[in-house]
């Protein structure tokens, strides 16, 4: 019987099962919490490619996530970068210093390009070429594997 009757005037429900269920839910949400979600721009509608390879987890290299919106603006960690060239220059110098990378060698950081579906190639290649000129040579172009209500058509 889930409760107890101390005396004839009152009864107390047994809170242990409720607490147990709540802890189960807390454990679930703690396991799926993602503190790096601000690197992903949710305004973007990514291209849909059903045959692309799933994202490798965990990534062995550090990642630099560039979100390119339909307007052509580049967002990094939730902030709009007015001068992309300057930003990439600073990032490249910081990474080279931290990892003791010689001049002319590729940086040990993967650039993750998340571009909106409606972009023209010109803007994407402009950003990619800026990255390459600063020493970034490993790129991941992120797409969606299936269309969602936000993504629209294939």
């Amino acid at each position: 019987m889930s409760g107890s009757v101390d005396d004839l005037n009152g009864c107390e429900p047994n809170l242990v099962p409720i607490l147990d269920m709540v802890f189960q839910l807390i454990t679930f949400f703690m396991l799926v919490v993602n503190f790096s979600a601000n690197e992903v721009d949710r305004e973007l509608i990514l291209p849909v490619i059903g045959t692309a390879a799933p994202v490798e987890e965990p990534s062995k290299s550090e990642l630099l996530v560039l979100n390119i919106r339909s307007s052509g603006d580049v967002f990094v960690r939730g902030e709009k970068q007015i001068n992309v060239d300057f930003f990439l220059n600073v990032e490249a110098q910081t990474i080279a210093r931290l990892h003791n990378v010689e001049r002319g060698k590729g940086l040990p950081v993967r650039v993750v390009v998340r571009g909106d579906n409606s972009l023209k190639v010109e803007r994407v290649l402009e950003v990619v070429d800026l990255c390459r000129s600063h020493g970034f040579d490993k790129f991941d172009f992120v797409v969606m594997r299936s269309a969602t209500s936000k993504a629209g058509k294939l």
Partner: protein
Amino acid sequence: MRRNTRRKRNRNAGKVELNMAAMLDMAFQLLAFFILTFHPSDVEAQISMLMPPPKPIPGAAGTSKNELPVEDSTGFPIEITCVASSTGEIEKLQIAGHSMAIGTTEQTLASFSDRAQAIFDTPGNDSAQIHVDPKLRYDILIKLLDTCTNRKLPNGERLTRIGITQLKSATAQ
């Protein structure tokens, strides 16, 4: 009277009561926090590529439309050229000098895929240079890249060494 008190005290001595309400309240607070900060993300995939920095061709300069860019493409034995229409669709697609028949994007890429497989099955053809019209839609470029990177080389690895350069956009059409 004294005896009764002792018996009553002994009867209650082994019983420990814990007030769960406070703990439950804290647990609900934590649960509410995690529910509000939970953002399920869509299933994403990626196309991985190795793109070394461009090397300019000394003295190269071009002004005619659709001319190859001024980047050194030696080391990329397979040249792929994609010209776009004003709407961003594929207007012309060539691989290793062979022009593909143009239909819908899916049909064009399907025939491109078959041709590419035959080319990349040849040992030594392990990298490609894509010259792309800047007017091309990004999602079509991604499909083109996906088609290329899905190719398996004779050694079993995927094609990842791909360079992308822009074609000089055609002046007045």
